[in-house]
């Protein structure tokens, strides 16, 4: 609804106001006349009409100020395309690379998903005024720089879709392992990210990276219930009860992975999804197809030379060639320095040392990981590993 209205106003604040106004009108009218057959359509029509009046009002003002006016050659506001296109345009506006990533995430939640500013602030652990200011700054930039409300040109589309997918992935990750606080899983964020990925998949059915991201999120969602035990303690992949993974979601992810890898050169999300799907298919941790996973990590590292990917690859190296080989990779990453402060580096190192029976060194590494984690569930897990090491 907001997406359809902003096409008329070309201004996000005005569109939000018009939508709120439409809800108010609905409250009054529906109480007397009853709820219309298609309440959503009714609301959108009213919001757009309100917005259009606002735009006309502004244009009259402009005509009265001829000296300052350069005639606006904005496209005629009508007719609008179907709603799904409007939502897609809004997603591309919110995830424009000219906006800071934290602003992209906040705007997407606020404007595409309609999450209240207070709830976004809560999810990202910042005070509400900070989040409100962040949103306002971003909206100002959209207006001042004229960030278009449009689906990008074909030659820019892959790069722009990639920005959108990164935002959705971060959104999911923020919900999946909240960086701090007591709840490991924030269903709100994971659910929103999954909904958006499904929407994007419906709107861009030919994009293999969209298929890849949706598959990746589906596998993570399928395993969600088993990430912690009944007492809320974190469980490692090898300790999770695989019979409780959601088979329907995994099957859906499998189909998407095949599609993502078959139709064109593999992308970052397609390969990540393939790795996740291989884990999900394995009957147990030990029976996982580790050589295949290592091959996929090699591909992923070429597509995305990130130290985090290299760290995950080291886990596969340990399973294929043993913990010593993996520790050599870890040492390289420590020397590299880019992962300083990243809690999963010492945590992974600790596990490898523990497997080799080098318990004193493992304990040091667990302590280092513990010092870096702000998530209560993770801290408890690491402390338990430390006392066992």
């Amino acid at each position, binding site marked *: 609804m907001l997406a359809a209205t902003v096409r008329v106003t070309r201004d996000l604040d005005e569109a939000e106001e018009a939508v709120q106004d439409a809800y108010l009108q609905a409250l009054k009218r529906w109480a007397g006349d009853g709820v219309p057959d298609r309440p959503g359509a009714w609301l959108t029509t009213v919001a757009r009409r309100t917005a259009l009046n606002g735009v006309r009002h502004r244009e009259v003002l402009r005509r009265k*100020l001829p000296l*300052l006016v350069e005639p606006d050659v904005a496209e005629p506001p009508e007719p609008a395309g179907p709603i799904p296109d409007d939502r897609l345009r809004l997603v591309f506006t919110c995830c424009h690379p*000219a906006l800071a990533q934290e602003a992209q995430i906040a705007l997407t939640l606020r404007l595409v998903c309609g999450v209240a500013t207070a709830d976004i602030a809560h999810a990202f652990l910042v005070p509400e005024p900070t989040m409100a200011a962040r949103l306002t700054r971003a909206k100002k930039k959209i207006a*001042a720089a*004229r*960030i*278009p409300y*449009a689906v*990008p*040109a074909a030659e820019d589309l892959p790069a722009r879709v990639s920005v959108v997918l990164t935002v959705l992935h971060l959104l999911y990750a923020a919900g999946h392992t909240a960086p701090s606080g007591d709840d490991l899983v924030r269903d709100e964020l994971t659910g929103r990210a999954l909904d958006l990925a499904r929407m994007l998949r419906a709107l861009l059915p030919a994009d293999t990276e969209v298929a890849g991201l949706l598959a990746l999120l589906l596998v993570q969602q399928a395993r969600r219930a088993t990430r912690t035990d009944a007492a809320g303690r974190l469980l490692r992949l090898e300790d999770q009860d695989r019979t409780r993974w959601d088979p329907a979601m995994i099957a859906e992810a499998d189909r998407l992975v095949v599609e993502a890898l078959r139709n064109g050169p593999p992308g970052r999300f397609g390969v990540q999804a393939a790795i996740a799907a291989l884990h999900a298919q394995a009957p147990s941790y030990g029976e996982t197809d580790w050589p295949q996973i290592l091959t996929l990590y090699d591909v992923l590292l070429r597509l995305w030379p990130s130290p985090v990917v290299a760290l995950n690859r080291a886990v596969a190296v340990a399973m294929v060639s043993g913990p010593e080989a993996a520790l050599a990779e870890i040492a390289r990453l420590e020397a590299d320095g880019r992962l300083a402060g990243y809690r999963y580096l010492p945590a992974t190192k600790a596990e490898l040392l523990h497997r080799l029976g080098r318990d004193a060194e493992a304990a040091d590494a667990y302590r280092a990981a513990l010092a870096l984690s702000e998530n209560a569930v993770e801290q408890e897990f690491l402390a338990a590993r430390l006392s066992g090491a």
Partner: protein
Amino acid sequence: MAQYAVLIYERVPAEDLPKEIMERHIGLPELIAAKGGKVTAGLALQPNETATAIRGDLVTDGPFVETKEVLAGVYLLEARDLDHALACAKLTPIVEGGVEVRPLVDFQVVAD
């Protein structure tokens, strides 16, 4: 059309720029016009060492902001929106550095 300033940050001083790059600078307005944009003005600056800064009453040598990046020139661009402006600004020839695209204050907005 919206108006933007394109700030050119180029570490290679103008006199050392390869001839081919200078020619591409000269041909830039035409290239941008072919994309539907319009260059309405352009300025090329002498190197940083020629700059003089004034803060209050204090006059010092050097540019106002000391950075590794050197502001070498600026041009005014008319484009439909930011995506269009970025597509045009990407045509700017650069040896070492980049460009910054800044929207200009729209006095219409101020009037409203």
